[in-house]
């Protein structure tokens, strides 16, 4: 079929979980394949090499999905290549969109991270402290290289122009399905937008006190609990109970998956459209709803690193962190 949409998938620094969501579409993916043709899927699925992509003609891919964050020079290079080859580029999942959890690595130096990863973990035996080197001459003649480690994590849009964003860690397969559906039907929002229903997790959460009304209407949070401190009541708003939940601040395309299993939202869905800085807004919203400064102090004690708390999935995209 000539008018099949040509799709490519490229994984940068990530776990390929987002791609698993695509696979999780199962029969729906098979149905979709009537309309789409996957021309590139590396390095996860297809036996293609980067130079296969490099050698493609520009703009031959209709829609490219890139998942994972940007940490290596290789990521930068491949993102740029894919941008050239793709007509439409989607930052797929929260790592590509906002940096993801691995983005918190930016709060540590490269040296610290290397030490932790290659020397100080209990299961590592590396007394001489030998670390991966970007290039190395073996036997005096083999010039071997490894991708070089950048100083900090970046989001995809800090490297190339991004047309659309999809949140989630990973995105819920139903959301991926809906996004692919939108692609196929051509009903996409304005360029630069998130593909999302645009509402907070609270909007889909059955525990939202605003839906209960009356005595159950939302009140100020009078204590702070972590999930290790107890088991939340399964019907009451987690935030209201003191389990700090980012549901109000986070896009709810997941359908409230975590809340459904009694786990507070940590924000993988990304900020609601209009918010530029997830962590700053999370701090502002949560700071607003805490009853008084003793509760605030409690929060700061329970979560000793606020940057890692509020920016769990979004640090590299933060207004201030991205410029540091």
């Amino acid at each position: 079929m000539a008018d099949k949409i040509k799709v490519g998938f490229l994984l940068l620094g990530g776990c390929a979980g987002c791609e698993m969501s695509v696979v999780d579409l199962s029969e729906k993916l098979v149905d979709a394949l009537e309309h789409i043709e996957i021309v590139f899927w590396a390095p996860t699925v297809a036996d293609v090499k980067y130079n296969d992509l490099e050698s493609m003609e520009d703009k031959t891919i209709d829609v490219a999905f890139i998942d994972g964050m940007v940490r290596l020079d290789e990521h930068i290079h491949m993102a740029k290549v894919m941008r050239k080859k793709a007509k439409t580029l989607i930052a797929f999942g929260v790592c590509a969109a906002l940096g993801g959890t691995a983005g918190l690595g930016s709060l540590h130096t490269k040296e610290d991270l290397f030490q932790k990863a290659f020397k100080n973990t209990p299961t590592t035996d590396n007394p001489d402290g030998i670390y991966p080197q970007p290039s190395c001459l073996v036997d005096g003649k083999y010039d071997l290289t490894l991708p070089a480690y950048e100083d900090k994590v970046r989001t995809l849009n800090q490297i190339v122009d991004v047309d659309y964003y999809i949140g989630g860690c990973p995105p819920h397969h139903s959301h991926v399905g809906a996004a692919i559906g939108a692609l196929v039907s051509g009903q996409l929002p304005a360029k630069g937008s998130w593909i999302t229903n645009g509402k907070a997790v609270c909007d889909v959460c059955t525990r939202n006190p605003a839906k209960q009304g009356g005595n159950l209407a939302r009140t100020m949070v009078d204590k702070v609990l972590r999930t290790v401190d107890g088991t939340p009541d399964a019907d009451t708003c987690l935030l209201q109970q003191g389990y700090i939940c980012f549901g109000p601040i986070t896009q709810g395309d997941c359908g409230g998956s975590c809340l459904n299993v009694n786990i507070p939202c940590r924000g993988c869905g990304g900020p609601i459209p209009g918010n530029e800085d997830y962590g700053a807004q999370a701090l502002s919203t949560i700071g607003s709803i805490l009853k008084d400064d003793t509760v605030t102090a409690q929060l700061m004690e329970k979560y000793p690193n606020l940057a890692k708390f509020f920016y769990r999935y979004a640090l590299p995209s933060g207004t201030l962190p991205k410029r540091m």
Partner: protein
Amino acid sequence: MEFVPNIIGFACQWCTYAGADLAGNLRCKYPPTVKLIKVPCSGRVKPEYVMEALAGGADGVLVGGCHFGDCHYKDGNHKTKNRMDMLKKMLGDLGFDPRRFRREWISGAEGKKFAEVITDFTAELIELGPNPLKGGVK
């Protein structure tokens, strides 16, 4: 050239902004470092604004609100305290010098205090030197 810090101040119109006006009435002297952005209440100041200002290269940011018990809107300043105390902590956690950010309660009667706070803040910023993000990519 001598380093003159650039301070952006978010000032509640009822207290700190009025206090700054009073400093003028009293002809208090302080360094010409602060530029106030008037807000109805310090509770209107998003933490993001502070971060934006710092990211944009401001050497210091001040958020000025009313003393507890004096808020024109009853308790907007309590929200300010919660948010800004956490923000100050988070700046440190981000590896950004939290001394570049101050949250102060300055009433409309405290013109002298306003001048003192700015004088003191300016001196501290001179000691800290320019914001390392000055001229950084936006």
